[in-house]
C-alpha cells in the first residue's frame, strides 16, 4: 500500500510539472488555462490520494480536500476565462471560429 501511495505521488508530481510547462508554452490565455487546469487537477488528485494511502489516518480528510478541489478548480478557471473573454483579450491567430460573439452579460 505504501509503495502504491508513492507511485501515485510520483505520477502527481509529473502532472504538476506538465501543468507548469503547459502554462509556459501555450500561446494564449485560453489554451494556457486548459493545460494548467487539467494537469494540476489530476496532479492534486493523485498526490493527495497517494498521501492518504501512505498514511491511512489522513484518508478521510484527504478525500474531503479532493472533493473540494474537484468542485472549485474548474469554477475558478471558468470565471477567469470568462473575464478574459469579456475584457476582450485576443485569442491566437490560429483560432478559426468564434460563435460566442456578443456574449456580454449573463
Amino acid at each position, binding site marked *: 500500500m505504501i509503495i502504491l501511495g*508513492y507511485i501515485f*505521488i*510520483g505520477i*502527481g*508530481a*509529473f502532472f*504538476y*510539472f*506538465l*501543468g*507548469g*510547462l503547459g*502554462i*509556459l508554452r501555450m500561446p494564449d*490565455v485560453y489554451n*494556457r*488555462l486548459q493545460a*494548467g*487546469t487539467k494537469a*494540476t*487537477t489530476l*496532479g*492534486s488528485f493523485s*498526490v*493527495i490520494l497517494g*498521501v492518504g494511502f*501512505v*498514511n491511512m*489516518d*489522513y484518508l478521510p*480528510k*484527504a478525500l*474531503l*480536500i479532493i472533493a*473540494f*478541489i474537484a468542485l*472549485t*478548480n474548474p*469554477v*475558478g*478557471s471558468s*470565471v*477567469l476565462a*470568462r*473575464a*478574459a473573454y*469579456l*475584457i476582450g*483579450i485576443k485569442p491566437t491567430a490560429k483560432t478559426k471560429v468564434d460563435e460566442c460573439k456578443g456574449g456580454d452579460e449573463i
Partner: protein
Amino acid sequence: MNVLNYIYFILVGFGVLFSFLRMLLGPTSADRLAALDTLNVVLTGTIVFLALVFKNGLYLDIALVYGLLSFVETVLIARYLEGKK
C-alpha cells in the same frame, strides 16, 4: 524514502519555476492570474505532501484553508478585472 522526496521536489520545483516565469513575463493581467491559479493548486498539493514529510496531520487543515482562500482570491481578482475593462 528520501530519494522519492527529492524526485517529488525537483519535478514540482520545475513546475513552479515555469508558472512563476509566466507570471513575470505574462503579456496581460489575465495571463498572470492564470499562472497564479495554477501555482495555488500546486502549492495546495505540496502542503498535503509536507504532512507526510514532517509526520504532522495539522498540515492537512492548512491545505484545506489555503485551497479555500486561493479559490476566493481567484474569483475575486477575476471579477475585478471584468469590471475594470
